């Protein structure tokens, strides 16, 4: 303790474990998939709508699962509603300066938008017989407004978890303000990988898949740059990763960032298998990244 590199070393671990790692990962997938689906809807062609639908199909179940993971992680799960309604006054409980408080509301809001888009996607696919629900997606005015609002909420869900960690006093988490930025890029990367995987599985062929693959490469490079920025911003605190956690982080970088980029650049001729392999690697790397960030701090 006398040689502690930061005052954050004098704090106690939060006991945030696997459920929170899972929530960060799945919540990131939900927000990121929706964000990408909106991008495809707004900037892609009509033929790309099937790809965007996959994003909406991921977003709602993923955020619903996240909504279950969070209460289960509480030590008093039945009091989950105390985060939404003040238990003494029955007024809305909202603190804009507390990322956890804001995050709970964002979960509800994003859940609402992702549900509407999910219904619109189902209607477009003909899985539910309500053609009027198609208006809940772009290019109509209502659909565009909903997509933009939902996309903003999706971005928030993808990134606020990093800000939540920064707004503590724990080692590593609060020693850099860049975790939110890193998580946004990681969520986009893992979401693009998930959409590509499901598109491949359902045999979907659209030129937008190439666009998405190319975008994923770009985002992976961004993620790598953001991670380097995180390490630099940590300064002497980064020595906490001169341990088994650092090895795992390196593995996350190799598996989730470098290997997919190499696969993407060096072996285009094996495209179909490459898409699957690199998507699986990106997902594994994104999960490992969250494991390292959560548990390396909890271990101090």
């Amino acid at each position, binding site marked *: *303790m006398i040689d*502690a590199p930061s*005052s954050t070393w*004098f*704090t*106690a*671990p939060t*006991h*945030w474990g696997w459920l929170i790692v899972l929530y960060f990962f799945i919540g990131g997938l939900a927000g990121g998939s929706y*964000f990408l689906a909106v*991008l*495809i809807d707004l*900037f*892609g*062609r*009509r033929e*790309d709508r099937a*790809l965007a639908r996959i994003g909406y199909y991921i977003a709602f179940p993923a955020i619903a699962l996240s909504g279950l993971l969070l209460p289960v992680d*509480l*030590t*008093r*799960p039945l*009091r989950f509603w*105390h*985060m939404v309604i*003040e*238990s*003494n006054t029955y007024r809305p*409980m909202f603190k804009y300066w*507390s*990322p*956890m408080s804001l995050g*709970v509301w964002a979960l509800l809001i994003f859940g609402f938008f992702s549900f509407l888009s999910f219904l619109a996607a189902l209607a477009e696919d003909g899985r539910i017989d309500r053609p009027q629900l198609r208006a809940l997606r772009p*290019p109509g005015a209502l659909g565009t407004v909903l997509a933009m609002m939902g996309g903003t909420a999706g971005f928030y869900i*993808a*990134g606020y978890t*990093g*800000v939540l960690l*920064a*707004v*503590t*006093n724990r080692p590593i*988490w609060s020693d850099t*303000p*860049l975790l*939110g930025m*890193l*998580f*946004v*890029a990681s969520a*986009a990367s893992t979401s693009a990988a998930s959409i590509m995987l499901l598109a491949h599985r359902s*045999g*979907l062929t659209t030129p*937008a898949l190439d666009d998405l693959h*190319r*975008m994923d490469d*770009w*985002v992976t490079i*961004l993620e790598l740059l*953001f991670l380097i920025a995180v390490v630099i911003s940590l300064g002497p605190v980064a020595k906490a990763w001169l341990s088994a956690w650092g090895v795992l982080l390196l593995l996350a970088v190799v598996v989730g960032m470098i290997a997919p980029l190499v696969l993407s650049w060096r072996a285009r001729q094996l495209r179909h298998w490459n898409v699957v392999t690199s998507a699986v690697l990106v997902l594994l790397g994104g999960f490992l990244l969250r494991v390292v960030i959560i548990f390396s701090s909890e271990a101090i």
Partner: protein
Amino acid sequence: MPEPMGFYTDTTVCIGCKACEVACKEWNQLPSTNGGVNTLSGDSYDNTRRLDGMHWRHVKFIEQFSEDRKDGRWLLMSDVCKHCVHAACLEVCPTGAIIRTEFDTVVIQSNTCNGCRDCIGACPFGVIDINPVSQTAQKCTLCYDRMQGGLEPACSKACPTKSIQFGTIRELRDRAQKRVEQLHQTGETRAYLYGADEKMLGGLNSFYLLVDKPEVYGLPPDPKMPTRNLLPGSVYAVLGAIAVGLAGIFNFRNRGAAPGPEARP
């Protein structure tokens, strides 16, 4: 409205009797560790080890001995929640379970807390933890119930050397400053006050007289508010989203929104 109240702990007169720990446990009906099974730390005479949901007072034993054990000293310090004027736990609590009382102290309402544990990570001093019986976050309440009844907290009442002193913050600061001057005059020039002024989190309503660096006592030299990262963290996250968005727009932009046949599996 009563004046702000708190503790002044003079570590130079603490004898490590742990009467404060016992009094705290007794009054607040805190459970024993491991159901009462005697668990020794193995490397210290201090077997409490740390503050947590069941130990709201902890007398730290800092055993400073030379390699050959011929020379050494004990630093003893009864640690507790600092009842910060700018309280990190209160700031982040998403349920409103953590409140500031009329005595300017910080209390966790156990019937409101849902155990999200955000406050545990926010506290710069590592004071809070989950109480395994209530399954809620708990810490020292500065004996809020006793204070409401006009009594002083159990720990300071039990302290046999007046190492823990209870009173109004104004009075305690005066008393502590005089004690520092007295120690300086008698040759103990290392004595200083930790957290007695507004520079540290607006002032700690439980502050300390120390004779070594804060780190030696397990106290952070530079405790900060967690929200220091809120604005920069959010700005960087938005920048990240813009970068990701641009990557998306750039890769999809040539494709336009022109109508065309929809792809089908």
